[in-house]
């Protein structure tokens, strides 16, 4: 089971490296969005600093959404999803592996990019640790919740829009806690409280989401 | 009477609110009944097919 999950993880990472465009697009979107706000809003850094948390988080949220749409679709189309469904392995574990790959390919890069973009929004260097940790935790939840949506909208036309409609409302808590944590980090106050909440969400997602994904995939494969 | 409809100046908000709500109630009634009617027709059609089908 561990071996199979690892195999799925490795395969998805390798595939991503073979087709870098799909990996880079969400990152590019993230960057464009975060630089867009200063352009549209104001050049004053201390004003930008106020909106930085919201901008970073909403951008991260939407960026990961962008990449989620294709999470299971490709496997479904080339028949490898059925192969996975019939592998004789606990499906939830494999689903978790795929989600982990997705996080490594979007959530993690987004997190690592955030400080750079944060600087453009006037975020002080002292805030970076907080931003990094909160995004790292939050994106995990985003990937997992999104995976559920992706599995549910499998094989649906214009899945992207529907996926957003299904997923975004469920990500509200992550957004709220995450943005708050970032805000506190920028203000230089203690953000452990917000981080705990984010961690709690992540744990909840890690335990429940894979089951939901597995169920959804089974249903979708009929 | 006109004073009643005037609703102490809130008419412009109150009546639309009531109108809308009762529109929603009405829609629910009608759509539910339509759904049942259509389902019945559909079932009849199926049964008909069943008779002359294989």
């Amino acid at each position, binding site marked *: 089971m561990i071996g199979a999950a690892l195999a799925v993880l490795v395969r998805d990472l390798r595939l991503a490296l073979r087709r870098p465009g799909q990996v880079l697009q969400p990152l590019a979107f993230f960057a464009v969005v975060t630089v867009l706000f200063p352009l549209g809003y104001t050049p004053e850094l201390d004003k930008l600093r106020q909106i930085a948390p919201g901008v970073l988080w909403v951008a991260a949220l939407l960026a990961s959404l962008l990449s989620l749409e294709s999470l299971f679709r490709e496997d479904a189309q080339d028949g490898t999803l059925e192969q996975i469904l019939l592998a004789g392995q606990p499906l939830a574990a494999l689903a978790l592996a795929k989600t982990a790959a997705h996080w490594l390919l979007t959530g993690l890069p987004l997190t690592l990019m955030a400080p750079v973009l944060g600087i453009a929004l006037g975020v002080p260097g002292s805030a970076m640790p907080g931003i990094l940790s909160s995004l790292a935790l939050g994106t995990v939840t985003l990937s997992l919740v999104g995976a559920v949506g992706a599995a549910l909208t499998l094989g649906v036309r214009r899945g992207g829009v*529907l996926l957003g409609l299904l997923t975004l409302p469920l990500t509200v808590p992550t957004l709220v806690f995450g943005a708050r944590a970032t805000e506190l980090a920028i203000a230089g106050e203690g953000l452990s409280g917000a981080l705990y909440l984010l961690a709690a969400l992540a744990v909840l997602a890690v335990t429940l989401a894979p089951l939901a994904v597995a169920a959804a995939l089974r*249903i979708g494969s009929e | 009477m006109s004073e009643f409809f005037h609703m102490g100046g809130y008419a412009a*908000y109150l009546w639309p609110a009531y109108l809308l709500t009762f529109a929603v109630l009405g829609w629910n009634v009608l759509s539910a009944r339509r759904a049942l009617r259509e389902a019945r027709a559909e079932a009849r059609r199926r049964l008909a097919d*069943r008779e002359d089908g294989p």
Partner: protein
Amino acid sequence: MDWTWFHKFGSPPHVYRLAGTLTPWFAWPAGILIVSALYGGLVLAPPDYQQGDGFRIIYVHAPSAWLSTMVYAVMATAAAVGLIWRMKVAHAVAASCAGIGASFTAASLVTGMLWGEPMWGTWWVWDPRLVAQLVLLFLFLGYIGLRSAIDDLGRADRASAVLAIVGVVNLPIIRYSVEWWNSIHQTPSVMKMDRPSMPMDMLAPLLMMLLGFTLFFGAVLLVRLRAEVLRRERGAAWVKEVVS
């Protein structure tokens, strides 16, 4: 314990007939309650000491809002039952709930906005209660969207069931998070629910409305349920009797 009642609920023909017979028992009381509450609310109840006649919107607003929450709860429960015990009828219940719930959620939003304009001088404020309600509407819309996007009824049933369950797990978390979000922005919840206890002649119509709307929901649900049950029966023998 004896599960026959459970299986009886599982049997479409029984449910179809039962729903048929029950409908009037919900419909008539609902109608009577709503109409009399209407009279009580618009005519008998005195103007509010600070909101004047504007407060009367509560008689359509609060019941809609309350119903919206309740319908989602019913929907999710039914979906879960359908998914776990593979009970077609339960899926039919869930399917019937979605449209009703969405419509009342929308109603609560719009009536709320119509109330907000005179009360707060703006159509919309980012009040936690309001946001939560808006998110609830999105959950309903997503559920309906997913259903409508899948052709095969069986698949649609179970996929949307998963969504409903995921949603209901999230709902409290969402509610909590928006309250939390609001609290940190120090904007007091504009919709203070701990208003000084209403005088009886104000409260009574509200309670009647709440009950009336609830019964109304029951009645509509029963009718829709019959339709859904029919759709799920591939022309089984009993269908012949009931439709022809």
